[in-house]
């Protein structure tokens, strides 16, 4: 890996980006509860997405040149990376389509959801992204133990998010009368959170797989494409929630 930073500066960057993201999320929340300014929320979400895409997903690696030949691990990893990003581009059209559906059907209204729970699961997912980044940089530095600990932490935080949405938020919303068949509002809410939860679920499976392979010692500091792929996918799931959270919880008026 030509871009591997030494351990302490990687930790410093990870912490710093996490603080930026946390502050922006808090700002988002405060803007939404104090005055409804959609444009500010959109800008904040875009800034957060940019931070995640650059510092956590390392989008710039798509531009890396490789010294090895076509059959080298580096060149193949470059091809795999391109393939993964193309897949994420394709996938983002699903989420984009869901956002369009939400805007078209709900406009400037939103469902009455538990704000504290929403902020809670969002924070949990954000925190999981931080640990995912720690896990990946640990592996890039050859620290297998650090990788295993951080990855399993990510897994449990991700699981916490999934339970928070599907097992807590859904029944609470249904109890308030917002069911899948109650109307367009419920349909949009369950479809958006459900599609996202499905991606979280697949991400959790990937995390378990790379954790298991890491446990067997199949990754090295130089060769760990599987870890990078799972990490980028996990951050992508986080990136989607950066848009879905304000779209469902913050934008618009209650009806």
């Amino acid at each position, binding site marked *: 890996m030509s871009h591997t930073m030494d351990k302490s500066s990687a930790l410093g960057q990870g912490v710093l980006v996490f603080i930026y993201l946390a502050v922006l999320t808090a700002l988002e929340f405060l803007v939404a509860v104090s005055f409804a300014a959609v444009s500010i929320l959109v800008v904040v979400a875009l800034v957060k997405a940019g931070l995640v895409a650059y510092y956590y997903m390392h989008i710039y690696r798509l531009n890396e040149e490789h010294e090895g030949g076509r059959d080298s691990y580096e060149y193949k990893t*470059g*091809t795999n990376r*391109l393939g993964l990003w193309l897949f994420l581009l*394709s996938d983002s059209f699903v989420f984009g*389509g869901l956002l369009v559906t939400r805007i078209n059907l709900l406009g400037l209204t939103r469902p009455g959801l538990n704000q504290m729970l929403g902020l809670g699961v969002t924070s949990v997912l954000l925190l999981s992204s931080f640990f995912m980044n720690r896990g990946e940089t640990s592996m890039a530095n050859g620290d297998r133990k650090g990788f295993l600990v951080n990855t399993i932490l990510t897994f449990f935080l991700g699981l916490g998010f999934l339970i928070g949405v599907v097992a807590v938020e859904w029944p609470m919303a249904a109890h308030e009368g917002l069911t899948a068949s109650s109307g367009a509002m419920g349909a949009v809410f369950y*479809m958006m959170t459900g599609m996202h939860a499905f991606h979280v679920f697949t991400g959790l499976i990937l995390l378990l797989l790379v954790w298991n392979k890491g446990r067997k010692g199949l990754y090295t500091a130089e060769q760990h494409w599987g870890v990078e792929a799972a990490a980028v996918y996990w951050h992508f799931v986080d990136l989607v929630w950066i848009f879905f959270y304000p779209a469902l919880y913050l934008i618009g008026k209650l009806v």
Partner: protein
Amino acid sequence: MKRFISTALVRGLFWQFIGTLAGAGLVTGIRAAMGLSITDQFFFTEPAWVLGGFFGVLFFLAGNGSVSDWFKWARGIETHDHHADAPGWEKYLNVSLDHKVIGVQYTITALALIGIGGTFALIFRTELAQSGLQYLTTTFKVFGQTGPQFYNTLMSLHGMIMIVSILLGIAGIINYVVPLLLGAQDMAFPRLNAFSYWIAVPAAVLLLMSMVLGGFDTGWTGYPPLSARAPVGVQMFFMGVFTAGWSSILGALNLIATVLRMRSKGMTAFRLPIFVWAAIATSIIALTATQLIGLSFQLVMFQRLFGMGFFDPAKGGNPILFQHLFWFYSHPAVYVFVLPGLGVISELLPVFVRKPLFGYKFVAMSSLGIALVGFLVWAHHMFTSGMNEYLRVPFMYSTMLVAVPTGVKFFSWVATLWKGKIITPTPMLFVLGGIVVFLLGGLSGPPNATVSTDLHLQDTYWIVGHFHDTIFGGFVFPFFAAIYYWFPKATGRRMNETLGKIHFWMMTPSFFVLTLFMMRVGLLGMRRRIADYDAALGFDTYHLIMTIAGFLIAISVCIFLYNFFTSIRKGEKAEGNLWNSRSPEWQVPSPMPAHNYDQPFEVVGEPYDYGLEGSKYVEFAKNK
């Protein structure tokens, strides 16, 4: 027979059957435990059929072995990169990682689906030959449908089966040809490539299942509210399209990665074969926009299953939203269909004219231009839908804009033909036929793009004629040209020229008669998608002529199929550079060796400098 039964195809279909039963049985069991009804008109209930269809696809893929390498990787077991397939026909029915085998698999499957979709068309075309209902009558019963209902099912399935066959057809040509043109050993992701093909097979089965599960009467577009009320068959239709969509998305992903990462030395952007440019343009659309048709169909499925009111006005939903999501893919989709075909025309034309391709860079950019403008035109399908009126004019202009890059292509073709030494073997006939037919399709387009005229033309047979012209010109003719042209590369034998010429001279005039009369009756007021029309409109003779023309096309395609399958074994040997082409794949003997090129080549000149003395496109390395 035993060898046939143990192939991946048969195993997959067997497991799909088991999976369907397992999924349907699971839901039925849960429903029984919950005290809900467990049987319906087609034995299982609708949710049971949906989970059954879904499980069927998963079981197919797991059962036929196309995902087994990934399962091994997930457990940390390494697999070999390249297997050479055993010689013989079995490799075409088994999971192969060789792009050439996968290309042939795609092409044969596409031909099979063209046969099925074409048969459907002949059945309802025959019904239309005369006004009144002749044999698809209200007393006619099949698969729980009356004659007119069955007409609707066939008409709807004809559309989608043909669309899937086109997607597989272009994937076949792209898969076979692009790595050879690039000098690559294979596609970037061989396993993903095999997966993309094999997921299309259960998708086709799902589409056909829709016919026996009550069918559906929505047309291929599946608009709610009609599709929200149609029989359970529409769910199978939605799932089939959704599954086939993944084939298209993953194939496109693979193609883009291959072109960006696997080119041989010296093959810069503007020395890429023009067909590769077209394949890139088509893949950009397929990679991204396909998700939107998948999403729109998924939303209707959930509306039916869970009562989610996305498109139900009574619940605050909006049916127009479906049309926006649907057409965001389904309009660019027609550029997915035609761009590779137009690429084939530009690729083959210089070979048979012995002259450089006129305006290479502009042709390359025009493919990208069509793809990008194609994203901005979808609502021209919705002029009469009741969407906001101010949207009509911008969409009218963006639609007209498509004519500019398309015009660039026509200009290039005509200028390439100009003063060329034109020879007309069968592939060239189909290239020329494609140009003329696509011109007719293009010229009949602006009246539909213009709001004032489209308000009258919407939903008439004029649109049917226009659409068939664009797709025959942009896909069917070039597809046949590509098969006649690259057949010797795949088999080492060429197809029979006489039969090829009969095929062309029988199909082309019949096709003109068919579509011109379609447009004619459309202008006179014939509505599309209906089983019957009033005799007083005076269309009977026109419809009879159209039906005869349709059968002539079918006979010509049968001649083609006969030619295709007999030439594999008995065709005239053609192992050298049959067409005298500059392209790298023709510089090595046919059929193509298993690992493509023994020696790598370097691109040293322009690809289409035919007739220029001393010019060279590729140079092979001298020693190993």
